[in-house]
């Protein structure tokens, strides 16, 4: 199995959802992660704080978030046999339905050098 980095970029705007609908989103997500664990695709995951800083051309700014609107809310490290399989897993992510952009990148194996 190879490792893949899955980044969720979302335009976090849940303003129109009721508490009940938000809970449903959480539950769908948890069910998805649960199934990843069960199928052996899950390695780890972590959310990212909304704030951060960006250094561009030697200048520090307050993070990438303001300019781009879409922001990376967290990452998953997944195990899959191929990019195709990892992509299929990404398509199952409930955030896809909510309009999030998902980026999947294979990690370059370093121990074979």
């Amino acid at each position, binding site marked *: 199995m190879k490792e893949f980095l899955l980044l969720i970029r979302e335009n976090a705007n*849940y303003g129109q959802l009721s508490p009940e609908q938000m*809970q449903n*989103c959480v539950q769908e997500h948890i069910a998805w992660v649960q199934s990843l664990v069960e199928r052996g695709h899950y390695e780890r995951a972590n959310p990212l704080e909304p704030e951060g800083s960006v250094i561009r051309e030697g200048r520090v700014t307050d993070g990438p978030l303001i300019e781009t609107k879409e922001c990376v809310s967290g990452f998953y490290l997944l195990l899959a046999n191929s990019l195709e399989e990892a992509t299929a897993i990404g398509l199952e992510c409930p955030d896809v339905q909510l309009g999030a952009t998902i980026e999947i990148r294979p990690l370059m194996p370093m121990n074979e050098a």
Partner: protein
Amino acid sequence: MKESSVHQLTSHLFRENAGKMVGLLCKRYGYDKADLAMDVVQDSFEAALSTWKFRGLPDQPAAWLMRVAINKMINRLKQADTRRAIEDSLFRDAGDSFLPESLDGNAGFDPGEIRDSQLNLLFFFCERPAPARVRIILTLYYLCGFGYAEIGNALWMKEEAVKKSLHRHKKLLHFFQPDEDYLKRRLEPAALDSLLDILYLLFNEGYKTTRHREGIHKDLCYEAMRLAQLVLAHLEDGRSHDDGRLAEDGRNTEDGRLHALLALMFFNVSRFPARLDEQLSWIRLEDQDRSQWDRSLISEGFHHLNRAAKLLDAPGRFYLEALISSLHCTAPDFASTDWTRIGFLYRQLEQLHPGHLSYRLNRIIAESHNGGVAEALREMTELGALLSQDILPSYIICLAYLYEKSGDVVNASRYYDEALRLTRSPIDQRFIQRKKSSLL
């Protein structure tokens, strides 16, 4: 992730906690900041959404949410305070900070405080000089965590109308006196009416929900029962400190009505285990396995029913409904149910509430079980002229059922088809579909 992934969210955890969080935030930081509190609660849910999906659920999701909400509220108030301080300093010396004292680090909370803040808000809403419907909308929105669409569903209103009503009436919150303990005051009869209506609606919304796969939102029912028990305990508690409130003959209508409502709730939840089949379709009362009904809940229902009988001076809506439910709960089977008495009780309900056509519909069906299907169909035609939108789907299903009973397969099938068009819930649809195919 591995350990925490075994945690499951209780259903409606968000919705139930929305009310608790808003109640607590308002109590601590002022009811004039209810809108900010609503914002903060929404923010906290978003934080949960974006954290939990990577991390899995925390050990105590409800406590997590409450802690995050309190911290966010404190931060928002600090920001506002700083902004105001800057504005103030432009014009004059900075005045008193409007930050409440409780901001000094105390982000803890205890269940008693949460409960009192909820009851305070509930009592406050029930006392507003506004139409009953407005009071119910405010309570469902601020206290029960209902969204616009969910309120619309529960009250048969358009989402847009709910929004408008909230917008127009939320200023009522500004009349809340933070120093006043609403729990110490005696509820006016009209306020108690509203309070009971709210609890009844909440329960019914759980009992026969139209939007969820599972059909029965047990937790919503239990939440309504929990609130009813809180209010009852509170009323009884207040009375033990103030003997003057007891009527001479020992009757007490307030407590009696709460007991009646609780009796009705207990009888109805006792049938939960038998109401749905494995394919998630309703099971008709006549087809339910009565051994699955929960006997301990039924006896709890009788406890409240007996208390209500002692305390009430006249049977009201909840008492009569509870009586009907008790007759179902004690009948050994469908055929030997006392339909004559049930019909009689529904007739009393019709007299008390002529506008509630569902009582009339239920009475017609109850009496048809005594063999009078032709008479029932004749009465259905009369009722048909008075129908409103909210009762139409039930009316059509009953019509199909009566035609089925009379052996008129063509009409039965026709009305099951029509019922299918009118219902939105998948459970209702499965039920109707099955009834229709069993005709052939």
